[in-house]
C-alpha cells in the first residue's frame, strides 16, 4: 500500500530507495520472495492509467505543446517536477566541464518517459578491457546475466527480432514479441543500408505488440513461487497490447509500454509485502557502531521534516548519480569519505552514451499516400554496430561502437513542423506554401547514433563543498570530459548518416558537422548516466562485488546504473533490471542463510 510514512510496528526487511527500473524490479522480486519491503520514492505518487494524455492534441496545450524549462520534452511528456532542472534541487558543474543531468521526481522515475529501447549487452561488452585494453572488465559475463535477460524480457514484454549478429545477443525462441512492420521511410532506409553493408533490423523495445498470457508466462518465470505466479499473472493480464497511437514519452494508460508503476509496482503491492512512501527524499544511510547499515534518513517533503526509516538491508536504486550522492553524504567518523568509499571510487568513472545525429530530406518520400506513422510510439527499426573486426584491427581511430536509431515520416504535426522548409522551397509563402507543405510532409528522416564511451579519470561527480538543496542535502558537482575515442566516434556517426541519406537520393538538412567535438551531444544529454559505484573483483578498485553488494557494508546493495563498469552501446535500462533481479536473488539467498 501507499503510505505517508513507514508503518508503525512493521519491521521491514529491506528499504529500497527509488521506484524506477532498478528499484521497481528489486521491490517486486523481494516482495514476491516474502520479504517486507519499504520503498522510498523522492517523487509524488503517479498513476499512468489515470494521468496519461493518450489522444490530447498539441493545439490544446500551451505553446502547442512545445518544450519549456518546466517541461523540456514537451507539455505532454510524462516527466513530473523535473527535467534538466528540478525546482529547489540544483547541481553544479566544475569550470570547464559541461554536464546536463536529467531527473524526474515521480513514482517510477524515468521509466515513465524513456525510449523503451531494450538491448542486451553482449559478451564483448562484459570484458572490454580484456578485448582492447581500455576501461575495466565486469566481474561477471554474458552467460551469468543471460538467464536474467531471458526472464526480464519475458516479464516486461519486449518486441524485436533475432539477428545472429556479432555481439548482438539473440533471445531464446518465443521470448521476443513480434516487432511492428516497417513504415515507408524505414523500407527506404533499409534498402540504402543494405547497399552500404550496414545491417538494419527490428528495434527491441519494451512495448507489448500482443497481449501477454499471464498464467503461462508467470509459470515460466516463477516455477517455484506460487505467490509470484498469482500476482504476476494478474498484472500481466491487465495490460493491453499497443494500439498504435500515442507517443510513448507521454506514458501509457493501457499499460502496453513498460513503466515501473504499471508493470513492477502493482504486483509488488499485490503481495501485501510492499509499502511505498512517496515524497520521500533520502539524504543518507545510517550505520551502527559495527558499520552495518541500519536504515536511512529522509525528508518528508510534504511536511519538510526529517524522518528515519529502518530495515535489515538497504538497497539503493535512486539512479546512477543520486545513489552515489547518498553514499557520499553518508559520512560518519568511521566513514569520513562517505559510506562504502574506501576505494575512493564513489562518483568516479561516470559515463553517458555518445550521441550525434543529422536529418535528411528524401525526394522519394514526397507525395506518398497517407500512412499511419504513429506506430509503436517510438522506433521500429535500428542498426546494430557492424564494424567490430575493423575496429579491433585499429582501422577506425576509435575503440568502441555505436548503434543507430532512426525514424521520420508523416508524424503528428507539432511545434517545429516545417521549420527550415524555406530552404527547400526558396522561401515559399501563400498558396505555394500549402502546396510545398503537402509535398514535403513526411519526407524527412532523422538518424541518431548511440555509442559506447570509455570511462575516464576526468568524468566523475562529487559533493559540492558549498551548495545544498532545499532539503539541506549537499548537491553534486559534475566533472566531464570526452576523449578522442568519443569525438571521433561521433564524427563517424554523422558521416555514416550522410552516406545513408545520399544513398537514399536525399539531401542533408543543414550541414554535416566536420568536427566530432561539434557533433557530439553534451555529457548527460543522452540520459544514460551510469558507473559511479562500479562493480569489480577487487575492493581496492571497485565499490561493489558482482552482486551489487557493497564490499564494506554487507547489508547495503546498489540496484541501479551506478554499478555499471562500462556503458556499452546497448541502452542501460534492460541491463539495470536484469542486474537488479540477480542482486535481489542473491540478497534473498544471503538473508535466508543469515549471512547479512
Amino acid at each position, binding site marked *: 500500500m501507499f503510505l505517508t510514512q513507514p508503518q508503525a510496528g512493521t519491521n521491514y526487511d529491506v528499504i529500497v530507495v527509488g521506484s524506477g527500473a532498478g528499484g521497481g524490479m528489486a521491490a517486486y522480486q523481494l516482495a514476491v520472495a516474502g520479504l517486507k519491503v519499504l520503498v522510498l520514492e523522492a517523487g509524488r505518487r503517479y*498513476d499512468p492509467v489515470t494521468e496519461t*494524455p493518450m489522444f*490530447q492534441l498539441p493545439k490544446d496545450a500551451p505553446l502547442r505543446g512545445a518544450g519549456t524549462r518546466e517541461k523540456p520534452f514537451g507539455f505532454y511528456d510524462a516527466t513530473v517536477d523535473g527535467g534538466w532542472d528540478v525546482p529547489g534541487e540544483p547541481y553544479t558543474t566544475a569550470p570547464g566541464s559541461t554536464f546536463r543531468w536529467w531527473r524526474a521526481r515521480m513514482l517510477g522515475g524515468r521509466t515513465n518517459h524513456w525510449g523503451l529501447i531494450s538491448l542486451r549487452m553482449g559478451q564483448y561488452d562484459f570484458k572490454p578491457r580484456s578485448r582492447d585494453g581500455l576501461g575495466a572488465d565486469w566481474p561477471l559475463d554474458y552467460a551469468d546475466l543471460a538467464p536474467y535477460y531471458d526472464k526480464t524480457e519475458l516479464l516486461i514484454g519486449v518486441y524485436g527480432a533475432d539477428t545472429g549478429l556479432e555481439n548482438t545477443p539473440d533471445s531464446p525462441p518465443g521470448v521476443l514479441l513480434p516487432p511492428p*512492420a516497417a513504415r515507408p521511410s524505414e523500407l527506404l532506409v533499409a534498402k540504402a543500408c543494405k547497399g552500404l553493408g550496414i545491417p538494419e533490423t527490428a528495434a527491441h523495445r519494451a512495448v507489448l505488440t500482443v497481449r501477454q498470457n499471464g498464467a503461462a508466462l508467470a509459470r515460466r518465470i516463477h516455477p517455484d513461487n506460487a505467490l509470484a505466479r498469482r500476482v504476476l499473472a494478474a498484472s500481466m493480464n491487465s495490460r493491453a497490447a499497443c494500439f498504435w497511437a500515442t507517443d510513448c514519452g507521454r506514458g501509457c494508460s493501457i499499460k502496453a509500454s513498460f513503466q515501473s508503476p504499471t508493470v513492477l509496482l502493482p504486483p509488488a503491492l499485490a503481495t501485501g509485502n510492499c509499502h511505498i512512501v512517496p515524497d520521500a527524499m533520502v539524504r543518507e544511510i545510517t550505520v551502527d*557502531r559495527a558499520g552495518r547499515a541500519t536504515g536511512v534518513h529522509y525528508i518528508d517533503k510534504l511536511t519538510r521534516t526529517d524522518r528515519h526509516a529502518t530495515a535489515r538491508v538497504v538497497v539503493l536504486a535512486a539512479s546512477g548519480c543520486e545513489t552515489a550522492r547518498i553514499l557520499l553524504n553518508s559520512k560518519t567518523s568511521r566513514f569520513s569519505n562517505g559510506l562504502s568509499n574506501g576505494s575512493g571510487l564513489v562518483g568516479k568513472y561516470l559515463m553517458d552514451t555518445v550521441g550525434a545525429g543529422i536529418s535528411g530530406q528524401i525526394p522519394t518520400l514526397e507525395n506518398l499516400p497517407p500512412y499511419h506513422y504513429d506506430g509503436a510510439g517510438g522506433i521500429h527499426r535500428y542498426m546494430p554496430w557492424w564494424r567490430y573486426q575493423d575496429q579491433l584491427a585499429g582501422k577506425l581511430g576509435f575503440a568502441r561502437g555505436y548503434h543507430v536509431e532512426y525514424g521520420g515520416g508523416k508524424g503528428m504535426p507539432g511545434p517545429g*513542423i516545417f521549420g527550415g522548409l524555406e530552404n527547400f522551397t526558396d522561401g515559399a509563402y501563400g498558396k505555394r506554401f500549402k502546396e510545398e507543405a503537402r509535398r514535403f510532409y513526411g519526407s524527412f528522416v532523422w538518424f541518431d547514433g548511440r555509442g559506447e564511451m570509455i570511462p575516464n579519470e576526468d568524468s566523475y561527480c562529487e559533493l559540492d563543498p558549498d551548495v545544498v538543496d532545499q532539503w539541506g542535502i549537499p548537491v553534486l558537482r559534475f566533472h566531464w570530459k570526452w576523449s578522442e575515442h568519443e569525438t571521433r566516434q561521433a564524427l563517424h556517426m554523422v558521416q555514416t548518416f550522410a552516406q545513408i541519406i545520399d544513398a537514399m537520393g536525399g539531401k542533408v538538412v543543414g550541414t554535416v558537422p566536420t568536427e566530432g567535438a561539434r557533433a557530439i551531444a553534451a555529457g548527460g544529454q543522452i540520459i544514460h548516466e551510469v558507473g559511479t559505484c562500479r562493480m569489480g573483483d577487487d575492493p581496492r578498485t571497485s565499490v561493489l562485488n558482482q552482486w551489487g553488494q557493497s564490499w564494506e557494508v554487507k547489508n547495503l546493495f546498489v540496484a541501479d546504473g551506478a554499478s555499471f563498469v562500462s556503458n556499452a552501446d546497448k541502452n542501460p535500462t534492460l541491463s539495470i533490471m536484469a542486474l537488479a533481479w540477480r542482486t535481489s536473488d542473491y540478497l534473498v539467498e544471503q538473508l535466508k542463510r543469515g549471512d547479512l
Partner: protein
Amino acid sequence: MIGRRQAIKAAAAAVGALPILDATLSEAQQGAPPRQAGAAAPAAGPRGGPWDPDLIHPRPGPWPRKLSSGELITLSALCDTIIPADEKSPSASAVGVPAWINEYVSHDSNQNALVRVRGGLAWLNLESNRRFGRPYVRLTQAERIPICDDICYLPKVRPEFQPGARFFDLVRDLVAVGFYTTREGMADLGYIGNVALPKFPEVSAEVRARLGVS
C-alpha cells in the same frame, strides 16, 4: 497504538546503538503541524503549476496576451498572406493562428520573439505606407506580393530588407505550427494518426513499388 516517537525508539533499540549523528528530532521539535495517526495515503494526480500540470485537461497558456488589437489585425492579414484559404483548407486566421502567435510571443521566455514580431509589424506598415500610402491590412493581394517577395527568403535578401526578412521568417514558422496543428491543418496534410488501431498496417504493394523496394 504507540506514538511515532515511541515507534522510532523501539526500532532504534532493536537495531542496536545508533551513532550520535543519527539523533532525530520529533516532528513537533521540527515545528511541523501535528499529523493525524494513520494519515490517508497520498493520492496520485497532478498538483498543478508549470512543473506538474493537468495533462488530461490542458488549457492554453494562462499568461496575459501582449499584442494590441491593432497589431493583431495586421498580424492576421499577414498570416493569411502566408497561409491563405484554398480549395482544400481554410486560411490561417480562420483557424485561430493569430491568437496562437499572440500566446507564443506573450510567454516570458519568448521576449526576443515579441520584439521581433512587434517591430516587424510596425516595419510592415511603414513599408506598405512607403510603397502604397496605405497600411498593410488595406493593401490588395497584388500589392502585398512585392513586399513579401522581398522578405521571404533570408539567404537571398537584399541588405535593406534583412530585418523584414527575419521578421517574416519567424512569423512563417509560427503560422506553420499554428495552422498545421489544427484539425483542418492536419487533415490538409493527410495526417491520419492519433487513432487507436486493432492492427498495425503493412506498407501496401503500390507504395513499395513507388519506393523501389520488394
